[in-house]
């Protein structure tokens, strides 16, 4: 956008001026579409390549739309390794982690937002500080801890370090902090138990935040690579990222089929987003967006 100097600028004739806002909007829309395309292009490419013939993936000129659609890539890719099992494992891990995050972040968020007890502010600090301790950095000792529990090669081992995320606690705390205390007090006077207060009064008000938490924790555990790689050494427990990386190492596999797995891996996250979208948008604070 340029600053328009009024002095050497002749106003357009009235008829054109009437269309000016429309024109500006049109240009804006066009720019926006170009921007969106930049973000969508790799996703579209991935999708198209998953239907492409094996030898077409690496060409000097990319063939965006397959001349022949190779739908058989999908069953072929799935048959090359136990991907159903890998996806199931990823699903189990991600759903468990999503649920524990939703439950425990809500509890802890509520505890930190609406209760004051000795050391509660220090606790908040300690909980938030764990954001500086991601799994990538504490990989070695976390592995040793999980080994102490004898959880190597188990589902417990894969999910254990992911169960609760400090960010989720903070998200829940912030979404609860503005709920007036009177509500809670009134309920207490009516004799409601603390858990009932949380479930019936607090929770309905922070469902949007909860869906944001749900989708992010699902996505993050769905994405886990390094941790399962470290903790799993049996095929039955491999998650799809491990399977997908291994897929490329088997030399008979066409690279287009790797894209098939990538597409299939993308679907669950997109689907969850589609289901939660309205609530997530509200959670993001985008309800006011036209």
């Amino acid at each position, binding site marked *: *956008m340029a*600053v328009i100097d009024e002095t050497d600028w002749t106003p357009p004739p009235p008829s054109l001026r009437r269309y000016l806002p429309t024109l500006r909007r049109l240009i*804006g*829309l066009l720019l*926006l*579409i170009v*921007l*969106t395309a*930049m973000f969508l292009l*790799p*996703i579209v490419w991935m999708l198209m390549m998953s239907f492409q013939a094996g030898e077409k*993936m*690496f060409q000097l000129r*990319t063939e965006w739309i397959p001349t022949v659609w190779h739908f058989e890539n999908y069953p072929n890719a799935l048959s090359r390794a136990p991907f159903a099992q890998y996806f199931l494992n990823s699903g189990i891990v991600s759903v468990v982690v999503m649920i524990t995050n939703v439950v*425990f972040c809500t*509890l*802890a968020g509520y*505890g930190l937002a*609406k*209760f004051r*007890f000795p050391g*509660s*502010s220090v*606790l908040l*600090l*300690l909980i938030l*500080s*764990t*954001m*500086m*301790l*991601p799994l*990538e*950095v*504490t*990989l*070695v000792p976390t592995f*040793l*801890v999980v080994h102490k529990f004898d959880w190597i090669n188990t589902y417990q081992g894969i999910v254990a370090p992911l*169960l*609760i995320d400090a960010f989720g606690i*903070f998200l829940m705390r*912030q979404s609860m*902090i503005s709920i007036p205390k009177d509500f809670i007090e009134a309920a*207490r006077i009516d004799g409601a138990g*603390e858990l009932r207060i949380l479930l019936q009064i607090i929770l309905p008000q922070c469902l949007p935040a909860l869906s944001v938490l749900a989708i*992010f924790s699902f996505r993050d555990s769905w*994405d886990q*690579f*390094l941790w399962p790689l470290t903790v799993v050494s049996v095929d039955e427990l491999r998650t799809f990222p491990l399977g997908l990386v291994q897929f490329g190492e088997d030399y008979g596999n066409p690279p287009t089929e790797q894209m098939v797995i990538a*597409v299939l*891996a*993308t679907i669950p996250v997109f689907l969850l987003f589609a289901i939660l979208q309205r609530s997530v948008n509200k*959670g*993001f*604070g*985008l309800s*006011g*967006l*036209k």
Partner: protein
Amino acid sequence: MAELATSQHDELASAESRSWHLHHRRKITLWGIAFVLPTIIFFAVFKYGPMLWAIELSFHSYDMISAPRYVGLDNYRALIADPIFRSTLFNTLIYISCTTTLLTVIGLMLALAINTGIPGARHCMTAMFLSNLMPVIAVCLVWRILLHPYGVVNQLLQHVGFGRIDWLTSEWTAMPSIIMVTVWRFAPYFMVVFLAALLALPDDYYEAAEIDGAGPIRRFFHITLPLLMPTIFFVVVVSALLCARVFLYPYLITGGGPGNATRVLSMLIYETGFSYLKMGQAAAISVVLFAIMLVFTSLQITLFTRSERIYF
């Protein structure tokens, strides 16, 4: 819960009911503790335990097979003397600062673009956000091929007159490429953060500014930007934390190469620990990374605990 006992209550309360209240209050406090307790135990075991262990381990020589042996500061001395560590640390800092800057600027620009009220902007936002949901592993596999010297990116750039660029195999463009991929993935997320902040801005400032005849650019720099400062701070800190732990992007896209151009600390931790079996040395690198992240975390905490806003 001091707030619970209102003055009105106190006046009415007999000694008996006061003791009941005291009991009741204690019970409520216990509930509060009970709500936080699972989290505390979890973090003690899976966050602080490993952290303390890493710190302890960093003073030992440990190959995971024979017992750890105390070596004092040897691991740290070895790190300082190691040119690979130094260049990896440098890479990490470059990655954090560039990615964070770009994410903040591009995130804000995207949010401003969406917020213009252009019809369809909302759908564009949703579409862009998909890049943030695509599995990282797929992101890396796809971009690695797109950035091939003869790949899609170069093919498209050719139309606007660019020559061949060896995105991932030239030491000058490899790190920028990794940064670009990270920005591609996370910019839409920060766009949403900024967008939420923009929507929450009070209208009356703008109305007043419009009456004063302030142009859009003046309005942006004099009203929007100052009001967005807390959000910008949030975005900077969160993306810095996000970048400090980066592993998969360089690991899968360039493998740390060419040379050492894209190796970051988390990769070095993994290699030193699990490939060279130097757990003590790996722990020392972890401690260095803790220190870097501590800076951003403390900034974040000051922001978080003072604000009542919802950040996500």
